[in-house]
């Protein structure tokens, strides 16, 4: 190689397109959605960028999620054991290499804990026909399109692809009670989303079950987009849709403190009990980083710590709380594009995690207490 002068025909830094390859490598729905949201929002930090989505077609929702990502310019879907190797980006290779890339985002670089630190989050898009399909389902089920509704979801052990998860699965009892509470007491309507094998609910006015809808993730996303809030009763991937549409999220029975991205969202964690049966205060859990998703799993459980579920009354308080904090949304939520931060040509890295939402019982405003 011969050194080249920097003047002359070299493209100026401002004009150059930043090529981003996002390795959206996750078999799970929630992670996959979050990687898409991160990558789309990250691209928006640049004045001129191109986003390439690398993902595996190993789950039925993958193409649909990428389709909803408004910032993807090129897709590199992989089937079976196909893969792309690093050599593709080696300019010294004549055998198909030499693809230029400026930024590679690996899954570990697209952490959900950094989403609230991005100056603005991208909004996923919903095709008009999907929106119309959702509206038709909603009205034909007898629900009132002039009144608000929330999306409700939780995890059941019948989710055959991923199987049982004792910490996350709940039966339908509490969700049914919560649905009635929202309709009868809070004056709302409820749309349930989830997988097709979820336990059927009894029919009652103000409730729509989309879990068996053939539209799958797209129709679920359409519902989330118009919801007053998303109520998650146990940890499960579809809740990741809420930040993609700027919809407040209330998480119950949470195992981690992260997930939501907005100040009007709230997390109610499961209660952590020590080996002596004494409850660990949520303040301690937060400040000692006990709820990061790995500490309990890898260290504390074998020392005798255990989670205990939220009670129905606690979940009702959360529902009341988020209903109150979203009182500016009496009907269907009007989709709005968030203000974009001034794009730049460079992004400082790494992005520092932060938290915008409230942790139930933690006290101080979340924005003032960054996540450990």
């Amino acid at each position, binding site marked *: *190689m*011969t*050194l*080249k*002068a*920097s*003047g*002359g025909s070299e493209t100026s*830094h401002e004009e150059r397109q*930043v090529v981003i390859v996002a*390795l959206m*490598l*996750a*078999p*799970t729905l929630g*992670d996959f959605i979050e990687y898409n949201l991160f990558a789309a929002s990250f691209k928006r930090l640049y004045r001129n960028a191109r986003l390439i989505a690398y993902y*595996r077609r*190993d789950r039925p929702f993958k193409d649909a999620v990428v389709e909803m990502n408004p910032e993807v310019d090129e897709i590199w879907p*992989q089937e079976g054991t196909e*893969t*792309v*190797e*690093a050599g593709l*980006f*080696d*300019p*010294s290779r004549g055998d198909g290499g*030499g*693809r*230029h*890339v*400026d930024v590679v985002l*690996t*899954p*570990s*670089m697209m*952490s959900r804990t*950094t989403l609230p630190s991005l100056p603005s989050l991208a909004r996923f898009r919903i095709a008009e026909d999907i929106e119309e399909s959702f509206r038709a389902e909603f009205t034909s089920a007898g629900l009132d399109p002039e009144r608000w509704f929330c999306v409700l979801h939780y995890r059941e052990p019948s989710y055959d692809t991923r199987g049982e998860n004792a910490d996350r699965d709940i039966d339908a009892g509490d969700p049914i009670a919560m649905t009635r509470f929202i309709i009868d007491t809070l004056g709302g309507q409820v749309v349930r989303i989830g997988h097709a094998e979820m336990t059927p609910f009894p029919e009652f006015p103000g409730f729509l079950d989309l879990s068996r809808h053939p539209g799958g993730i797209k129709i679920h996303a359409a519902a989330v987009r118009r919801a007053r809030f998303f109520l998650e009763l146990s940890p499960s991937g579809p809740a990741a849709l809420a930040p993609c549409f700027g919809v407040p999220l209330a998480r119950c029975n949470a195992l981690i403190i992260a997930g939501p991205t907005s100040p009007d969202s709230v997390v109610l964690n499961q209660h952590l009990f*020590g080996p002596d049966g*004494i409850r*660990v*205060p949520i*303040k*301690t859990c937060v*400040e*000692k*980083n*006990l709820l990061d998703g*790995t*500490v309990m799993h890898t*260290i504390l459980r074998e020392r005798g710590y255990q989670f205990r579920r939220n009670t129905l009354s606690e979940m009702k308080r959360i529902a009341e709380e988020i209903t109150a904090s979203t009182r500016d949304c009496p009907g269907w939520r009007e989709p709005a594009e968030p203000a974009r931060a001034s794009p730049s040509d*460079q*992004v*400082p*890295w*790494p992005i*520092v*995690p932060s938290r915008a939402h409230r942790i139930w019982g933690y006290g101080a405003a979340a924005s003032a207490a*960054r996540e*450990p």
Partner: protein
Amino acid sequence: MTYPDAIPDFSGLGPHGVRPGELPSRECRIFAHLLAQEFEPFLIQALYAAAVKLCFDHAKLFAYHGKIDTRLAGVLSMLPDITFTWRGQDRSTIPMDYFDPSSGAALSAASAQWRDLGCEKPDVMLLPSMMDWRHLGAFGRAPRFVLPRDRVPAINQALRDLGLAMTWWYCALAVPDHDTEADLEAWRSAMRSGAEIIADRHAASLVLVGDPETDIGRLPAGVLDARNLPDGVLGQSYVVSRARFLLDLVSTPWLWVAYGFGVPWAMRVSADVPVKFPGQGFVFPADPADSEKLAAAILAIIHETRDCPQWRATVSDRHGPAPNQIFLPMSPGPDARILRA
């Protein structure tokens, strides 16, 4: 048991190496794909990866390379910043799926060490097209080569055997590769001109480093040929590291060796235009046959390096605080200074 004191504190384990307001609480993991097979781009990639690591107070640098020759292996042996090196076969490279940290990853590295080291969860990934040499000057902390100590005595003995004075300065002169497009006759003429100034006027030596296959003709007085020193690239790198400056008349990879050791260099360029190049370097515009300009440039860099009357001591950098961040992408560094007589 009383709460909260009896409960272990995991706050230092913050996700992805960061905790609020400070970076990082655990090492920033950098994964660099050193895929170049040629000497110069490999030098650049290795130095670039090290420069990124030096941006952080606490970082681990993992590097991958395919089958490499002894010159490239020598480069790696001089780079103390690499935490762990993965070696592949031939020109094999890593599937992107190896960076899936989930338990359901479609493709995973066979070695358990891959995950034990946390290679599947990098905080920064460096691919060849990202490691642009123009960026190197933008890093506040320059990467530094370090020669393995146990190799130095033998190299010193070889230099004594060549007749190099141990108590006076010398200049390293980069020899172009034998298959270069450079005008070798013009280069040989320039070497003779350089020898007249450095050897005749300053009683110093001109020590050649570079491709031993290049025909350099008859050696003028004061010129020593170190291209066949023991330990290959290590021996020649040692010559560069102790030189008062490196003189490069055709833009060779040895500039990067000089940069890696913090040794000043002067490079002839064909036009008076800025060159993005890091380190304590100068360019001097001159035609290959313009011996007057070459002489002026040599005198100028001798003046610029007047603080080095003997063999150069190992550079001891005084670093400022680590920024604990980089920019994606990095921007080009400042232009090299133009050496004027």
